[in-house]
């Protein structure tokens, strides 16, 4: 008997390139809060087309959060010692308490900001496009999108000991037209996926998508 009602929306196997299938089989198809997720469930993005499917969802490797976590851990103990400072030692106890409250709320704010920026600065590869979502600070966002057929070259680099140990690196995608973007000053291209885990796999997926796109274009021309 054919299944009329299915709980899960079946993934369209035609659109999936080989590497994505392998990633899903290896357990990268899990929840979308990981550094690299293949076919993330229940995930959407702004301006997503109706039949567009997310193949990869990436963000910076969690180890890149170490600097702000270490800073918070060090700054956490400062109120224990600040009675040594003459300016703080000379104020009354209630003011010292208020100062401590402000200090810890400030640290919490810093942590929440960094957590939000890490989580929502994502790179998306769909079966049609690649999207680079960048948030800078509180009030500024930059979203770059380009179609797969406009990609000219894709490469990755792993620099430093941490990148080698934890297997993360920058994936730089060059497009046919020069992409003018605010974040190109610091990055190699408007489409630079910074510190993503398994950059070799990401490059492979994008390359396969480019091949698939070329093939479709060629078949369309000869038909």
């Amino acid at each position, binding site marked *: 008997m054919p299944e009329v009602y299915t709980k899960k929306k079946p993934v369209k196997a035609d659109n999936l390139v080989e590497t994505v299938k392998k990633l899903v089989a290896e357990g990268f198809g899990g929840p979308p809060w990981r550094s690299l997720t293949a076919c993330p469930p229940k995930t*959407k993005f702004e301006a997503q087309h109706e039949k567009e499917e997310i193949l990869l969802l990436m963000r910076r490797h969690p180890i890149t959060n170490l600097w702000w976590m270490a800073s918070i851990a060090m700054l956490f103990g400062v109120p224990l010692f600040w009675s040594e400072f003459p300016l703080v030692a000379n104020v009354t106890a209630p*003011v010292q308490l208020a100062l401590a409250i*402000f200090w810890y709320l400030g640290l919490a704010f810093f942590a929440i900001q960094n*957590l*939000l920026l890490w989580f929502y600065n994502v790179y998306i590869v769909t079966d049609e496009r690649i999207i680079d979502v960048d948030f800078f600070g509180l009030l500024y*966002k930059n979203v770059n999108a380009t179609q797969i057929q406009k990609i000219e070259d894709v490469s990755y680099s792993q620099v430093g000991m941490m990148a080698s140990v934890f297997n993360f690196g920058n994936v730089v995608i060059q497009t046919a037209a020069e992409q003018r973007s605010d974040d190109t000053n610091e990055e190699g291209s408007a489409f630079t996926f910074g510190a993503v885990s398994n950059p070799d796999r990401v490059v492979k997926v994008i390359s396969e998508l480019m091949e698939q796109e070329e093939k479709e274009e060629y078949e369309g021309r000869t038909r």
Partner: protein
Amino acid sequence: MENLIQALSLSLVVGLLVKVSLVLLTLLSLVTVRQAGLMDRVVSVPIGNWFKGIAWGFFWTCLVLTTGVILIV
């Protein structure tokens, strides 16, 4: 004028600065709530509500503590 200068103590000045800073931090936390909502709209993931919950929790904590500091200290 002299009475005013005599009444100004280090605790009073520091206390006032802390209160103003706490009010500013509460406003920033409100901006964070809005920001979390906007970010979730750009990229919608199942865990997004959890982040919005954190932002709201931080805002209410800031508001309660700031009110307490302003009233008590």
